[in-house]
């Protein structure tokens, strides 16, 4: 009869449970490397390498986890903003920003100095997307890099490519917002009265942002990813231009709430804007 095995807590270097054989006895096989291996003149060197690499992998995992959490929170902010804008949404956004701050401050020391460039921190793009969208909706202005850095609730340096790729993502949100509001209200959202100097619609803004980004030389990331993001942005502007044309020419013929067909020429492009950088 197999004896009853009482699980015992053991402190182990590696988390992730204890391996057992078919009788439930703990396997000791994973200690083999450190216990049974004969030592030779290179063993101390490899042991020091092991410790260094472990430190590096741990740090990468910590950063990766925070990055995923902050990405998810940033996306939640964007989703909220895409609806109508009562004050409780600002409260919701502030709440999420507080959570983001909580996550990011845990890795501040992991991403200072040279480690800022060693590990991917995609979440900062998503963060810039979220706050620049919120900034645009409130002030109809493009967030500046220094404002973006100022809004980042942690002592982490925002790089030019974090900012730029965030703005690329912003154009996608502006497109979605423009389309939805145009469909609901029957006119392109904008400020000022028609014909006056400050008459501006979200379409004009999108066109301006895309021109500026096209004029500037590429910043950061792999050139192929940069080029892809640029193409997607131009495509998004064209879509809103079609919406603007449609509403101008046939606006009155359509019932309110009618959604223009966004995917007539190129359907499955919508998700490509979240091209990952690694």
């Amino acid at each position, binding site marked *: 009869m197999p004896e009853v095995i009482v699980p015992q807590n053991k402190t182990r270097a590696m988390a992730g449970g204890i391996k057992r054989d078919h009788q439930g006895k703990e396997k000791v096989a994973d200690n083999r490397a*450190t216990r049974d291996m004969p030592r030779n003149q290179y063993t101390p060197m490899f042991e020091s*390498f092991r410790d260094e690499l472990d430190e590096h992998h741990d740090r990468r995992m910590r950063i990766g986890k925070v990055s995923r959490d902050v990405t998810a929170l940033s996306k939640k902010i964007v989703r909220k903003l895409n609806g109508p804008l009562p004050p409780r949404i600002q409260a919701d956004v502030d709440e999420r920003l507080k959570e983001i701050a909580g996550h990011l401050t845990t890795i501040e020391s992991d991403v200072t100095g040279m480690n*800022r460039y060693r590990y991917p921190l995609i979440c900062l793009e998503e963060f810039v997307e979220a706050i620049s969208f919120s900034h645009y909706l409130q002030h109809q202005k493009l967030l*500046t*890099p220094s404002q973006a850095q100022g809004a980042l609730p942690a002592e982490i340096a925002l790089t030019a490519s974090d900012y730029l790729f965030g703005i690329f993502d912003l154009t996608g949100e502006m497109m979605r917002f423009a389309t939805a509001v145009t469909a609901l209200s029957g006119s392109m959202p904008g400020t000022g009265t028609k014909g006056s100097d400050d008459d*501006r619609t979200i379409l004009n803004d999108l066109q301006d942002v895309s021109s500026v980004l096209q004029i*500037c*030389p590429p910043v950061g990331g792999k050139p192929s990813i940069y080029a892809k993001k640029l193409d997607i942005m131009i495509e998004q502007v064209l879509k809103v231009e079609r919406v603007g044309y449609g509403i101008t020419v046939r606006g009155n013929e359509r019932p309110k709430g009618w959604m223009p067909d966004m995917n007539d020429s190129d359907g499955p492009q919508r998700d490509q804007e979240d091209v990952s950088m690694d």
Partner: protein
Amino acid sequence: MTDSSSSNLIDPSIFEYLKAHGEEELEVGEKLHHITSALNRHISTCQGFLSRIHSTPSSKLPPLLKQVENDGIKPEIDSVGELARFASNYPYYKWSRSIQNVVGTILLTGWLGGLETESRPGELGRLLTIEEVGQLLKVPVNLKDRDAFHITIEEYILALTDITEELSRLAMNSVTMGDIDLTVRISGFIKDLFAGFQLLNLKNDIVRKRVDAVKYHVKKVEDVIYDLSLRNLIPKHEAASS
């Protein structure tokens, strides 16, 4: 782009910011490309000279290693110095592959008995440490406290997997050239390194991929040793100690 229509929406500072960063990146990228392509040329030359070890009997090895040092490694050192001086002004970039190759040529030359200095006579079978490689290249290693050019542990480990591959090839060729002692030395060395690699906790990355390949290098050498011992070709004193 500072016309009236966009000035409302887009603060001019944004344009200036993006332009400045983009232009700097282009400039730095071109300069880095220029330096690394020169470095890669020196690496190829050096690896080319080193490939002659497979057809050079041990008696003629010292002059060959001298040539590797003068015509291969010296230019590499100069190029790495240039890269280090330039790259240290900018944030962390990756040149892993080139540096790995440089370290590989240095480790192989050193192991074969080259790269002797006054304090350190050339000696067959000596593995230069990452610190010694750093001294030779005149660059820091495994930096943690500041962002400057340095040799990383990963680059050194990857270079180790390069030389186990090269030495496993040499183990066979040295039998052909009649130097069975060298084959036995290589066998012991590769096995020691293999044991060392087992100590690392590797994640799914290039280091794991390369380290996993080392077992094939070990097997290649073991097959040679097996062939030799089957035919009683291994010198007795070596066989006893291994």
